[in-house]
């Protein structure tokens, strides 16, 4: 490890904080890293001056979805194609509740309900799978099929009978007319984040939603760093590496997977809530197969065992995908995927980090997403 990494015996609050944020489970455990991190955050904060905060905020929102998969797959070994289910549940729940209670208090409650709804959905599916003894590829398939079932179901909610209170689910056309995101308590203190162009010192205009998304992404990233470097994080990693062996050390593996999966669901739902708030609209394509596969792509390319990799890859890939016009873009994206997963199965960010820290790890020896492990009997 870098010699200037914080150790638990260092005095000073800063060192103690760094101690919680650093560890073998995350990339970047040196002063240099945090310096670069600070620069990147400042750059992101300054971005709306030169670029479109309104457009870019989408990538920040999706980065939360990528982080949710990194948590569940990269850190617990559960390859889930179902993160978009919780994303969609979050978005739709937010929409339904906020349409029915369109004041600040109601919308705030809707946001919370969305996150909780996603978490509950994940807990239910997780319980069904893990406590039912479903493992490995079958978990992945069930999450994929669940996504398909949700897609098919939501797409046919077109009739007027599919209305919850004032909110029609809208079938394939989706649910428009979601109230503008205003958080707080009605009449006491609230702030509108969406479509609320503000200006700083009369000099430049900015979109507060961008900063909301950025703040949430930052908090989530740092919070997850603390989590994966904690005792619980170490057990999560042990479960990913060899769940049978970990059980033999007295750990309740089912419970750990369920907890992680639930947290991942809540996180994906948060992303969905922000997505629906940003677009003031939500529709069934969030459950589509290609969208379900996107997080897997972001995380695979970025480095699934790396939170930073998930964030960077999501932003980069989505930026590329949505800004480059033309049909060739998808061809290039597809080819990129192919090349990256074959050449760098461990992901880009860990590879780069390895180079920067001077370790000469040959590419073929990097963490392989599914390197064959020990076969454990029964």
């Amino acid at each position, binding site marked *: 490890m870098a010699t200037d990494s914080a150790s638990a015996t260092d005095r000073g609050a800063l060192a103690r904080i760094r101690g919680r944020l650093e560890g073998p489970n995350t990339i970047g455990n040196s002063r240099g890293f945090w310096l670069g991190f600070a620069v990147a955050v400042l750059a992101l904060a300054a971005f709306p001056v030169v670029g479109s905060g309104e457009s870019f905020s989408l990538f920040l929102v999706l980065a939360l979805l990528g982080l949710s998969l990194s948590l569940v797959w990269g850190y617990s070994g559960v390859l889930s194609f179902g993160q978009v289910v919780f994303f969609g549940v979050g978005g739709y729940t937010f929409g339904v509740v906020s349409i029915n209670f369109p004041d600040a208090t109601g919308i705030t409650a809707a946001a919370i309900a969305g996150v909780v709804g996603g978490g509950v959905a994940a807990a239910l599916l997780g319980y069904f799978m893990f406590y039912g003894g479903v493992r490995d590829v079958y978990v992945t398939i069930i999450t994929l099929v669940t996504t398909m079932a949700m897609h*098919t179901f939501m797409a046919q909610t077109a009739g007027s009978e599919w209305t919850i209170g004032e909110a029609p689910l809208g079938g394939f056309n989706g649910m428009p007319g979601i109230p503008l995101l205003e958080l707080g308590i009605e009449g006491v203190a609230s702030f509108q984040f969406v479509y609320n162009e503000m200006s700083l010192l009369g000099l430049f205009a900015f979109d507060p939603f961008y900063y909301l998304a950025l703040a949430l992404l930052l908090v989530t990233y740092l919070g997850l760093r603390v989590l994966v470097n904690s005792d619980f994080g170490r057990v999560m990693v042990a479960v990913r590496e060899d769940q049978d062996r970990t059980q033999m050390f007295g750990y309740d593996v089912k419970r750990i997977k369920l907890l992680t999966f639930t947290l991942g669901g809540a996180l994906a739902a948060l992303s969905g809530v922000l997505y629906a708030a940003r677009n003031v609209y939500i529709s069934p394509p969030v459950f589509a197969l290609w969208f379900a596969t996107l997080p897997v792509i972001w995380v695979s390319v970025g480095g699934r065992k790396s939170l930073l990799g998930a964030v960077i890859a999501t932003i980069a890939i989505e930026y590329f995908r949505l800004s480059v016009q033309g049909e060739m873009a998808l061809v290039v*994206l597809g080819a990129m995927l192919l090349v990256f997963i074959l050449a760098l199965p461990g992901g880009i960010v860990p590879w780069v980090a390895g180079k920067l820290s001077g370790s000469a790890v040959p590419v073929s020896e990097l963490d392989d997403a*599914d390197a064959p492990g020990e076969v454990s009997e029964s």
Partner: protein
Amino acid sequence: MVNGLNLAFQFLDSFAFVVLAAAGLAVIFGIMGVINLAHGEFILFGAYATTMSVTNLGLPLPAAMVVASLLTAGFGVVVERTIISGFVPNWIGQRTVGRDLIEPLYDRLADSMVATFGLSLVMVQSARILFGNSIDTVGTPFGNVAYGAFSYSTYRLVLAGISVLVLVAAYYLFTRTTFGTRVRATMQDEQTAKALGIDTERTYMLTFGIGSGLAGLTGALFAPVLSMQPTLGDQFLIEAFVAVVVGGPSVVLGTALSGGVLGAVSATVTNLTDSTTFGRIALLVAAILALRFLPGGITGFIERFQARRREEE
């Protein structure tokens, strides 16, 4: 009586669809442990090849189907050599930088999903760029069977028959031929198979080719009844997946049984609710329940059941 006939036809329809959609994927997943998310695009390949052979080359439909299947099989071999086994890149790598460039994708489920998803993106978009958003379809042959106030496409009945033929042919291939034995040996234990002199590399290549060819055949067979768009593969993919995993370890029997069970569920619900959408949802839910309560799929369950029966004797 009429509704009974409706139900029967719906079942045959579902059965044929599931079996034909799954056949190629079952072979590849069951034998190589590779999840081919581009499976739908191989079907696309076969469908487009068939359609264009008829409209552009003027081939009769059956000939076009054969040609298309063979072309898809060939394309599958190319894909296997470059992406799945990495043979070609590694051959290049050995001669330039002196080492292998990539690892084979066998038994790497997540990685094979990402890689083949990339492949599918490339294929769909290439089809769109090369041929536009849709191409002309070929007509459905054979006409209709009439009963009561309904009529049913004879061709779809033919498809049901062909799906059974495909199962029988696959069964024959895997159990009665030397090739089939080699494949099953490799599937069971690659190391031992190699030690016994089986060229496992070639076996994988041929297996992927056959799986691709079957997918191409599915595309060819369905070409007359589908609209020819670059995204036509999507509708097959999920059903194929689900059928393969629900089917379990036995490639032929598993596909047949899951085709039967899932087809029955889908047809019954479609019939009762008058909505193919609900039929599809029911199929997916049935699959989830099957995966939860029958770990190892249907044939896995059968194997365990037989084992338990034996121990009680």
